[in-house]
């Protein structure tokens, strides 16, 4: 069984965002694998360790430097990589089209991806991929069992937890609580340098969404700060503020 994992390279979640010439500046930003995709990579590697999968392919669409994200996934234990070179301004539609074209050539049994990216927060691409490929999709999974050509997935759902079964091949999107991604070992990092990574250019399609402008949210002003007071006295003042300014309802 072949597992293919889609990864996006994103800013470190600790990064401070600044604008330069009207665009989001990437100067001095540490780049990582999108944390939700990192969980998908770990999930794919665990399927191989459990002998359910025999190959884990990692696929990314993006700028040349997205190669670093692929190498990190290879160092964790994926077998080989594919980098689709694509303009970083490609929208969710264009990215899904580019990834789907590469996936069709690979014909995997399971396609894993994070359910959302920590940068644009769109949560569209895995779902769009499934539609293009004509495959079932389970979103936001926290656990998976694979047997008899089917995947039974536990997912975070609105107001609860859902258990869903789909036939393979299928697209499966991960929630961060699925697993704890491993750190690459030194041996893994050395081996990753020798693992094959194919490159190709993205299928050229027009965006369906156009960005008008980026901005930074208005800075929130700090208000009252009680310092040096006895805690009970501070609590009384906080209670007054909650009752009179916020007008909370007490049950």
């Amino acid at each position, binding site marked *: 069984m072949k597992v293919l994992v889609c990864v996006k390279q994103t800013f470190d979640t600790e990064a*401070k965002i600044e604008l330069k010439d009207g665009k989001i500046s990437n100067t001095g930003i540490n780049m990582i694998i999108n944390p939700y995709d990192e969980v998908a990579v770990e999930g794919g590697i665990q399927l191989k360790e459990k002998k359910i999968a025999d190959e884990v392919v990692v696929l990314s669409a993006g700028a040349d430097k997205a190669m670093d994200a692929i190498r990190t996934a290879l160092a964790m234990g994926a077998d080989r990589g594919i980098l689709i070179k694509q303009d970083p301004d490609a929208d969710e539609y264009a990215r899904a089209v580019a990834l789907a074209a590469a996936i069709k050539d690979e014909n995997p049994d399971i396609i894993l991806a994070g359910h959302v990216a*920590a940068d644009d927060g769109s949560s569209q691409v895995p779902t769009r991929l499934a539609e293009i490929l004509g495959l*079932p999709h389970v979103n936001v999974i926290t656990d998976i069992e694979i047997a008899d050509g089917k995947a039974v997935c536990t997912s975070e759902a609105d107001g609860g937890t859902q258990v869903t079964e789909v036939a393979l091949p299928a697209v499966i999107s991960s929630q961060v609580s699925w697993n704890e991604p491993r750190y690459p070992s030194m041996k893994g990092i050395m081996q990753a340098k020798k693992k094959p990574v194919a490159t190709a250019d993205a299928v050229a399609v027009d965006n369906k969404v156009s960005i008008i402008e980026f901005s930074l949210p208005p800075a929130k002003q700090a208000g009252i700060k009680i*310092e040096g007071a006895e805690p009970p006295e501070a609590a009384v003042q*906080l209670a007054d503020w909650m009752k009179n300014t916020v007008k909370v309802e007490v049950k």
Partner: protein
Amino acid sequence: MAGTWIFVDQKNGNIRKATFEMLSEAKKFGDEVSAVLFGKDVEGLVPELAKYGADKVYIADADIFADYNTGAYVAQLAAMISENSPNAVLFAHTFNGRDFASRLAQKLEAGLATDAIAAEISAGKGVFTRAIYAGKALSKVEVTTSPVLATIRAGVWEVVENGGAGEVVKPAVAATDADVYQTIKDFIPTVSARPDLTEADVVVSGGRGCKGPDGIKLVEQLADMLGAAVGGSRASIDSGWLGHELQVGQTGKVVNPNLYIACGISGAIQHLAGMSSSKFIASINTDTEAPIFNVSDFGVVADMFKVVPVLMDELKK
């Protein structure tokens, strides 16, 4: 002209507040507002939808729509869109809403703005503001395909009673069993008397300063007194004091309540990203340098174990 369609986010006949928020706001677009209701035996929900402004309610009522399933819902809504050509279709940005809207958008080869926090829709043109990098930046995007598709964050719009006509329209059922590709084996509802984190008016969160289950218990007691949801920073999730689904921040939930109370939370940038759009923020932390104070309307530099019990006594008075 077939106006603005609002997909009704409901389960077992309980409509999410986000649906009423969208109906209320859609009235301002100056176009006919329709609710789109999928389910089984759901016609009884029509008066509620009309109350918040639905001029029309499209009802797809059949066994196949009893519970959300992506394939059947997409087939049905795609057929309805093709027949009626609405200017815009909006969904709540819930797990189901984003799944539905994304798959529909791809089927229509259309653009989609997800998790929008503001919208300008007129004459078939749709411009949306989105919080990116979990709220550290904003992007304004135009969906350039038709109909305009978007999912909207809960809590960004006010619910207003508007009295729509609520005229019922029953389109033909276009989905078949062949469209269904997921089998729902089980659904385990969250057993909690507390409101949903992303829809609550008040959220009380605990962090590292809770020091363990005792501190979390204080957070929960305060939350229950205020009818609030409970949340946590990464520290309290990673320590196992709270379930992952309660994490507030860049890799958790983004919340937008009227009041957010941070107990023992220092305010790492990725936590601030998940809560700093709250209308009012109160924080209790022993470290005067904690970044949470920079975004707080009311900050108390003190030990939460000494403040919260007195706070609860005072609130009861």
